[in-house]
């Protein structure tokens, strides 16, 4: 692999816990590895890491927590083999109380180091919630995948996750372009502007400075999260993905790609119970087919 080699980063989030993020990211990483790609899977769910269990391996001794607290100096020393050719794992923090909330400097160091790993793909499993740590991993990726299940709580959290990611990215851009003052003034809680959507945010900024809006809108053109609908049972469930995509475009002004859907499948919990990867033990199951098809959409 040469120095100019492009590492592709996929980050899987969703705002809510228990919606299948870890299952999807673990199985997608196996699919890529089976195709001969060198993959590192990172468990960035710092508060509740368990990707090792999805892959059927014991809890690794060294974790991201050790790297963050500098108990190990090189991130490579936290990488473990998974027993699956081409696939290695960096496990999330387990025992460090503070590791779930790394300092800014720790996070910058981590993101920089991850980007230098000598692999083809880096897949990141994000925890639930919308903390800055999670959003920053999502935003640093080449493909930010948003997992949603067709249930009210999951959909509600997914929109929150999207809005927070959008706002975080606009804020970062504003700082980068040195127009943070305008951004902060518009979002000042005392101003009572009651901004609900990115459209409204840009409207308010344009009242202060139209050129800043143009700049920020251009910078946001690359913000295109990808939706994966998990645990679908009916055709109506599948259509919810198209509805979410439409609402994102029409109401939020966010371009969302509906990447694919995965059927609810009893074999999923059977594989979890056995602590074995679904794609290996049940490669022809409905859920495995859905994950494979979704990963393929991303590779095209």
């Amino acid at each position, binding site marked *: 692999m040469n120095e100019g080699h492009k590492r592709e980063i996929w980050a899987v989030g969703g705002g809510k816990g228990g919606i299948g993020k870890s299952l999807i990211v673990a199985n997608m990483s196996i699919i890529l590895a089976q195709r001969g790609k060198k993959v590192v899977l990172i468990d960035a769910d710092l508060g509740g890491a368990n990707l090792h269990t999805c892959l059927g391996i014991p809890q690794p001794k060294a974790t991201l927590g050790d790297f963050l607290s500098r108990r190990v100096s090189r991130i490579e020393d936290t990488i473990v083999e998974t027993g699956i050719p081409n696939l290695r794992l960096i496990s999330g923090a387990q025992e460090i109380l503070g590791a779930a909330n790394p300092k800014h400097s720790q996070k910058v160091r981590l993101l920089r180091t991850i980007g230098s790993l000598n692999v083809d793909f880096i897949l990141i499993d994000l925890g639930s919630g919308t903390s800055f740590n999670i959003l920053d991993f999502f935003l640093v990726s080449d493909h930010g995948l948003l997992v949603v299940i*067709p249930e*009210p709580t999951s*959909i*509600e959290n997914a*929109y929150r996750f999207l809005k927070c990611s959008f706002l975080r990215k606009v804020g970062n851009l504003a700082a980068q372009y040195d127009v943070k003052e305008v951004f902060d003034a518009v979002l000042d809680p005392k101003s009572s502007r009651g901004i609900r959507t990115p*459209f409204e945010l840009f409207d308010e900024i344009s009242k202060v400075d139209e050129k800043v809006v143009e700049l920020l809108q251009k910078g946001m053109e690359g913000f295109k999260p990808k939706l994966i609908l998990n645990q679908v049972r*009916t*055709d109506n469930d*599948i*259509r*919810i*993905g*198209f*509805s*979410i995509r*439409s*609402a994102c*475009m*029409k*109401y*939020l*002004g*966010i*371009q969302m790609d*509906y990447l*694919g*859907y995965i*059927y609810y499948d009893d074999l999923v919990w059977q594989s979890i119970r056995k602590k074995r990867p679904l794609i290996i033990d049940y490669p*022809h199951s*409905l859920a495995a*087919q*859905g994950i*494979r*098809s979704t990963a393929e959409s991303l590779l095209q």
Partner: protein
Amino acid sequence: MKKLSQQNYYQILEVDPKATKTEILRAFDLAEETYGTDSLATYSLMTQDDRRNILSKIREAYQILVDEESRKLYDQYLIKTSQITPEKIRSIQAVPRQAPAIPQEKETQGPLAPAGAITSMAGEENYSGKALKKIREQKGVDLKQIAQVTKINITYLKLIEEDNYALLPAPVYVKGFLVQYAQYLELPAEKVREGYMKLYNQAKMP
């Protein structure tokens, strides 16, 4: 990204300016579902008023685009105001009212052939996978297109066309796939589903 108030009717309805009438109907159905009172996808995101406002714009767009005459006038307006170039709009020749002398071409605008073609091309009441495949090929539709739009895994679509019942998933899923497949090809979805499932069940019988 443009705001709703700045979008043309095609963008509001999320269809291509070359969309067939069936595609417009389908898009409208989805929009009604998306912004309706009981919508799971939008209830937590927007207020009832927000949804009502969006839906009213969508209905306005639908009313214009679903009627051939008003759509034609609207297309001309888009071209005249340089909002769209003529090659991106359906061919004016393909609009049925422009060619009343050739009624069999009425539905051939857009990418798909008439829905009633199933019997003449595939034989009487033949809804086997192989017959469906033949129709699809005659309509010039690639299986990948169907997979992309319906989000059905292409492997399943291939298995359906191969009549490979043994590898197909449970009937409840197959029925759903068949309906979407048929709708895409503008075939009578219920008949296709029932016809195919009849063959499927016969083959599965011990």
